[in-house]
């Protein structure tokens, strides 16, 4: 690793002040950032350690509202019986971060804001992976794990394990910055960059993710991941669904794909199709088809379209308690 400075603020305000300076980067669990530094992918002058910042770690269950601090480790969340009972799908999403060591180190905020796994990005070719004359290394190269819903020049996938579920739930992100606190839907944390300067998240310099808040009452959620390996790897495809309203009808359905697009991919048409409907194998299959409508697979990732269909069907089945 190249040399860098280090600051360990005690408060959110101090952290925000430090992170407003150019070249400063927030350090959470470190499982992703340290790899990026070792591989010299992202230049950093100073790390701002969030581990000791007060008010960023902890879990509150307040009626139907679940509040999770960004520095809460995945294992702490997994071990919180109240949170898991209120939102059992969390256990599936967390267990998908498949190693005890990563769950002990990795944080909720770090999972949400980890950088993409695209191997061109990780080799230093940038998020858009363009050649000097503007051709895409992804479309012309090995794209087996890339997006089936590319967005402009962005063809990597969002790697977060928790984001699809939180987006399906309609959770809010709590962000602190130089201008104070702002709240936004978790999906608005993400963007598909179109220039080399843009990142895949929407946080401004100096802003930090303090945590997330979700209403977990009155809905049923599920996560289904399709994996190549059970340990130490990201899923190939994931679907999260949230159904509101009493069974067997879904008053409203929200279906979100992970590992499918540069951002958590809200399959709005699929959700609309199910809203107000009874969940049957027919309606579920129709929703799964709708979820991949408009997919634009590349030379090596056509298989992911079918994985997405399957993930949606099984997530819906789990949420509705059906055998699919």
């Amino acid at each position, binding site marked *: *690793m*190249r*040399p*860098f*400075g*280090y*600051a*360990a*603020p*005690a*408060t*959110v*305000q*101090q952290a925000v*002040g*430090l992170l*407003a*300076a*150019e*070249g*400063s980067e927030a*350090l959470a*669990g*470190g*499982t992703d950032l*340290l*790899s990026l*530094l*070792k591989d010299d992918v992202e230049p950093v*002058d*100073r*790390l701002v*350690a969030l*581990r*000791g*910042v*007060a*008010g*960023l*770690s*902890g*879990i509150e269950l307040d009626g139907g509202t679940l*509040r999770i*601090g960004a520095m809460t480790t995945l294992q702490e969340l997994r071990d919180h019986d109240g949170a898991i009972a209120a939102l059992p799908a969390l256990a599936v999403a967390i267990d998908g971060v*498949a*190693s*005890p*060591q*990563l769950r*002990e*180190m990795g944080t909720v905020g770090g999972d949400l804001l980890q950088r993409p796994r695209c191997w061109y990005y990780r080799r230093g070719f940038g998020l858009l992976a363009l050649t000097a004359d503007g051709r895409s290394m992804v479309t012309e190269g090995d794209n087996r794990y890339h997006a089936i819903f590319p967005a402009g020049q962005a063809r990597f996938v969002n790697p977060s394990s928790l984001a699809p579920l939180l987006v399906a739930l309609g959770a809010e992100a*709590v962000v*602190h910055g130089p201008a*104070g*606190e702002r709240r936004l839907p978790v999906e608005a944390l993400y963007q598909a960059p179109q220039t080399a300067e843009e990142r895949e998240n929407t946080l401004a310099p100096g802003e930090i993710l*303090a*945590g997330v808040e979700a209403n977990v009452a009155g809905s049923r959620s599920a996560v289904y991941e399709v994996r190549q390996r*059970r*340990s*130490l790897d990201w899923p190939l495809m994931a679907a999260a669904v949230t159904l509101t309203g009493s069974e067997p009808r879904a008053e409203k359905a929200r279906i979100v794909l992970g590992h499918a697009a540069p951002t958590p991919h809200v399959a709005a048409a699929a959700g609309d199709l199910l809203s107000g409907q009874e969940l049957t194998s027919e309606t579920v299959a129709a929703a799964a088809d709708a979820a991949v409508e408009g997919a634009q697979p590349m030379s090596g990732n056509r298989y992911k379209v079918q994985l997405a269909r399957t993930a949606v069907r099984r997530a819906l089945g789990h949420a509705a308690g059906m055998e699919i």
Partner: protein
Amino acid sequence: MKGRRVTDDAKRSGFSRRSFLRGGAAGALSGGLTTGLLTGEAGAAAADSEATETVGPGPVDVELEVNGATHRLAVEPRVTLLDGLRHRLDVTGPKRVCDRGTCGACTVLEDGRPIYACSRLMIESAGRSITTVEGLGSPDAMHDVQQAFVDNDAQQCGFCTPGFVVATAALLARHPAPSEPEIEAGLGGNFCRCGTYKGIRAVVAGGKGGGVSGG
């Protein structure tokens, strides 16, 4: 670069910084729930007296406990816990294999929790307690898990073994009698390229060694 406020004089840090790096992080962690989760107000009154100092990139004094002994050393912020243990403290049980948090050979316990030492900066472990395979037991007085690895011939080349022993101890501390899926999940963060998994499963299935001493 603009805004960069790094200093190179941290080699001889003052007492205030030294005591901060020893205890600051752990002390602040407990503040979460009762002092305003997510509100950004927690701890403000206590901390606004002094601006946060940036240390490094030169060596910074760090104090931490390793296998029951307190160590104080000066390390650059970029030094990982793994490299600090191996190169500075001569604690060579944790192995540097992938150095990217994907193989488990560097597994140690930090405050009793299994972590990848390659993916933690040593400065981040200041004030905390580290247990490596050496801290679990010695050749003369082996930890039950270490003895079980010997009894079940659960190693071949042995390079992954220290990490597996620590991960197994952590697994058994959490699940004294783990089910098959719990064994798979609990040791899913460690790889053995020789394929000694059969012996390691036998170690865990023996249910020996629950609990971790020395940390």
